[in-house]
């Protein structure tokens, strides 16, 4: 097999499991990204590369800075310092909407379904290159009708793919929590991103829907999409990730394939505390 036909995710096999390690084909590269809240260093990532076409999980204990890193990379929060580039293009300092247009689309920990838009409108909204989104063009229906029809076809395909077609014309506010997660993922895909960033995609949804969501995510990866996701459920992380990055106290403390990360000492220390397995006072006795 040539390098071209090897699934890009499996090319991670040769990458050594070290924090900040270089990947063969990174789509996102971040350097020295820092963010402090008062005296607290929430994020202090010296180097992070995300492999193209792979599922990368971002794990870490509460307060490790995972969501803050998401916010920084996607323009929802301002970094104090640092640079990051996506597909070779610097995104540092860009507002959130331009990050999305560059092809890096995120979802939120607390789903943000647009309650009083229908499910179909939610999807159509996300589509790009609709000139009817300009004020004066919008007033002249024939100028944007054709594009609207093609967007609607795309949206209907997407609804069918995520089994949301029955809810097509319902307000998004009537969906269940799990359906909202699916809607958010489908909506993000309507932007036609090269990479999606999912913040706790399985939080608060039932196990059956979780399985369905994970299948969708793996299928997207197989179609060439890059996925970076924050997750607390270790079964989910171990089940679908090609690569796992662990953060603690704002830093990347470990990286590696899913199988290696469970036995990594830095990870265990971060989750359980450095003194686990020893009795209090052992330190002094030594």
């Amino acid at each position: 097999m040539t390098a071209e036909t090897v699934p890009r995710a499996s090319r991670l096999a040769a990458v050594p499991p070290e924090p900040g390690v270089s990947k063969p084909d990174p789509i996102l590269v971040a350097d020295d990204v820092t963010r402090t809240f008062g005296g607290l260093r929430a994020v202090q990532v010296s180097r992070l590369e995300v492999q193209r076409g792979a599922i990368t999980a971002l794990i870490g204990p509460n307060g490790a800075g995972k969501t803050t890193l998401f916010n920084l990379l996607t323009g929802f929060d301002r970094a104090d310092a640092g640079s990051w580039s996506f597909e070779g293009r610097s995104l540092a300092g860009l507002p959130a909407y331009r990050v999305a247009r560059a092809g890096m689309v995120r979802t939120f920990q607390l789903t943000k379904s647009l309650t009083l838009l229908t499910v179909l409108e939610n999807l159509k909204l996300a589509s790009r290159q609709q000139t009817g989104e300009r004020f004066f063009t919008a007033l002249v229906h024939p100028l944007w009708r054709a594009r609207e029809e093609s967007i609607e076809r795309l949206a209907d395909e997407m609804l069918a793919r995520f089994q949301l077609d029955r809810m097509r014309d319902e307000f998004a506010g009537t969906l269940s929590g799990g359906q909202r997660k699916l809607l958010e993922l489908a909506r993000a895909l309507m932007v036609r991103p090269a990479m999606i960033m999912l913040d706790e995609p399985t939080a608060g949804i039932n196990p059956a829907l979780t399985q369905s969501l994970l299948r969708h995510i793996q299928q997207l990866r197989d179609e060439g999409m890059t996925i970076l996701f924050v997750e607390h459920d270790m079964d989910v992380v171990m089940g679908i990730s090609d690569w796992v990055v662990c953060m603690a106290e704002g830093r990347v403390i470990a990286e590696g394939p899913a199988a290696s990360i469970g036995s990594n000492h830095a990870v265990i220390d971060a989750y359980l505390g450095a003194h686990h397995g020893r009795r209090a006072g052992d330190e002094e006795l030594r």
Partner: protein
Amino acid sequence: MDFLTILGDASRAAIGPEAAIYALAAIGLNMHFGYTGLLNFGQVGFMLVGAYGVAVAVATFSAPLWAGIVIGIALAIVLALLLGIPTLRLRADYLAITTIAAGEILRYVYRSNFASPVTGGVYGLTRFADPLYAINPIPAGQYGFGQLSVSDRSLWIMVISWSLVALACVLMFLIIQSPWGRVIRSVREDEDAARSLGKNVFGYRLQSLVFGGVLGATGGMLLAVYTQAVQPDAYNPVVTFYLYTLLILGGAGRILGPVVGSVIFWFILVFTDSFLRQAIGTGLIPAGLINPTEVGAVRFALVGVGLMLLMIYRPQGILGDRREMMLSDR
């Protein structure tokens, strides 16, 4: 008690120029508040710059009336940009504070001594809309029947103002149904979601503020040419609250909400006024209980009670959808 007179007075107010003018300004507010979720508490400021744009251009600088109208609209755009650029990136509350302050600043500037050579100070300006009445195609006389009779002059302004209301409603319908309207509503629902999908939330808010502000200024201009007078204290913050009242009464986020709201608002206002005066005049209500000079205040108290009942039993307004109200997590 002459109920026919009371109903006649109330109906005349409900279809009169004021109802149309308030409807127009409230359509602008509906763009801001009902569709974009912008808390604009200074819609009266847009009315003021529109009204004075016409009045100052024509009365002070002897410009033609059409130029005054263009200036009024241009001033509304400038005001929207001045208000919006510093505040629309911030949380909604800041726009509310800024707009209510801006409306008052404008009123004080226009009524101040140093501005009086241009604005006429506290006395304002008069008789600047003669060209509009000169082209009135309606022959002189009274039109209508019985209590519903209006002069040719009033009818002319009614035709113009209700036509503008109809035009504004058509524009709103077209723009809200369009992809532009879809983005605007998404900004109202959740600005971060809109941003995450590549929408320039700030830009859309600014466009909404300008469009609704221009509609407000158009209402102000109509008020100015209808009364042939501008006087700064007519543009006090209470006007904005009336606009909110009738918008919520009719149903915010509905194309015809402000129109229905304005008609009902003016009907109720004049109905209670006329009723109270007659009731006191005929001794139905003892003059010792309500003095005729207090009628103006009492009718607003009654309108307030009516609104409270509406908020309790129909919080979505006349045209609103209860289900949407329940779903909304705003």
